[in-house]
């Protein structure tokens, strides 16, 4: 790991965000417009910051920054290639969970900070959604780490050299996918900033640099989450012909496209039903997934 790796992570963040923007145009079927996107981005950043008179001192302007830091830290833990393993901690998967956990206060700060009724409602709906996705996300990480016998993402990738974890533990994979869509507040879980119901909700007050940072953070979050899905479930950089980094990129783009495509096909979820569904179905299934993971580890991965 050379000293340039932090810049490498930032490069992956920016490149990934651009790639996700292009993916959205592809999935939505609109013509690619790089000129328009560039113009929109530059005009947005050139606007002055805007602050509603109802805003709460620093919460309003700190939220986008915290969101971006959480997103990039989550991205830093993803092992992209044997040579570039990102932040290679022994407990890297927990750092991934910890970084994602800071998206919750960031969106609540935005919702509470803007002060408008619908913004506050958006902030509290996000808390309810956090209660729904947090437990499956954390328990599935345990289920995946057990066979690998370590919490280091690259070790988990190594243990999948024969067969990807998605085939070994399909239940864990099925619980993981909706949780990662909810973490990135992408449709069908875009409850905090539901455009049609809350008119922009928690992020309605943002203009200029704040809005650009929130837009960037959401895309970086999607790149981080898709990358980690590829690493934990689709045997990371292992693959027959192509070099490791290319495999990782292909799998990440695949997962991101699946997430964006599913978002367009499903209606927006309701908070109370999602919460009840998560605690009545997803959590018990997550417990079962851990039990299955234990059995599989004893049987195959000794």
């Amino acid at each position, binding site marked *: *790991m050379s000293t340039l*790796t*932090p810049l490498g*992570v*930032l490069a992956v963040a920016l490149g990934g965000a651009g790639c996700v923007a292009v993916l959205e145009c592809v999935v939505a079927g609109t013509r690619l417009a790089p000129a328009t996107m560039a113009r929109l981005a530059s005009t947005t950043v050139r606007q*002055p*910051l*805007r*602050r*509603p*008179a*109802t805003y*709460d001192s620093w919460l309003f*302007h700190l939220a986008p*920054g915290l969101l*971006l*830091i959480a997103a*990039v*830290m989550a991205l*830093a833990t993803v092992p992209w290639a044997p040579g570039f393993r990102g*932040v*290679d*901690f022994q*407990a890297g998967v*927990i750092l991934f969970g910890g970084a994602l956990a800071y998206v919750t206060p960031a969106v609540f700060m935005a919702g509470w900070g803007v*002060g*408008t*009724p619908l913004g*506050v409602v958006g902030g509290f709906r996000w*808390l*309810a959604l956090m*209660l729904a996705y947090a*437990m499956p996300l*954390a*328990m599935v990480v*345990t*289920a995946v*780490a*057990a*066979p690998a*016998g*370590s*919490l280091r993402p690259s070790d988990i990738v190594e243990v999948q050299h024969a067969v990807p974890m998605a085939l070994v533990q399909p239940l864990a994979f099925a619980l993981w996918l909706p949780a990662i869509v909810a973490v990135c507040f992408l449709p069908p879980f875009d409850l905090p900033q539901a455009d049609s119901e809350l008119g922009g909700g928690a992020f309605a007050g943002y203009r*200029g*640099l704040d809005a650009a*940072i929130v837009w960037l953070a959401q895309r970086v979050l999607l790149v981080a989450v898709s990358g980690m899905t590829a690493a934990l479930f689709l045997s990371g950089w292992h693959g027959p012909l192509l070099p490791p980094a290319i495999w990782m990129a292909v799998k990440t783009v695949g997962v991101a496209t699946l997430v964006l495509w599913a978002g367009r096909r499903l209606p927006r979820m309701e908070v*109370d039903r999602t*919460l*009840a569904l998560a*605690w*009545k179905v997803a*959590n*018990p299934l997550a*417990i079962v997934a*851990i039990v299955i993971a*234990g*059995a599989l*580890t*004893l049987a195959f*991965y000794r």
Partner: protein
Amino acid sequence: MTAVEFFFVLLALLLGLLLSAYALVLWRRGVEVTRRGEQPAWPRYHVRFYTVALLFIAFDMEMAYMYPWAAVFRDLGFFAYAEIGFFLTVLGLGIAYGWREGALEWS
């Protein structure tokens, strides 16, 4: 360059970039205040999912024990599996009790 150094260098780099971006925009463009004269809507918000939050805190504590188990389980064998089995059934009982008492519904 160890992982911890990498982590803090990246964090410092991010903070630096964000602060400089905000400083530049504030210096060049300043801030506009909109919706003047409106009172912020900060009520004592009637959160409807507080019972689920209580269950969530207990479950979050559980994760503190599940992670070390996942790290060492492969080398310990069946005994650790039985232990975590007990641990998970206890948690399952917690959810079942919450479900029966209607803690999972929107109050």
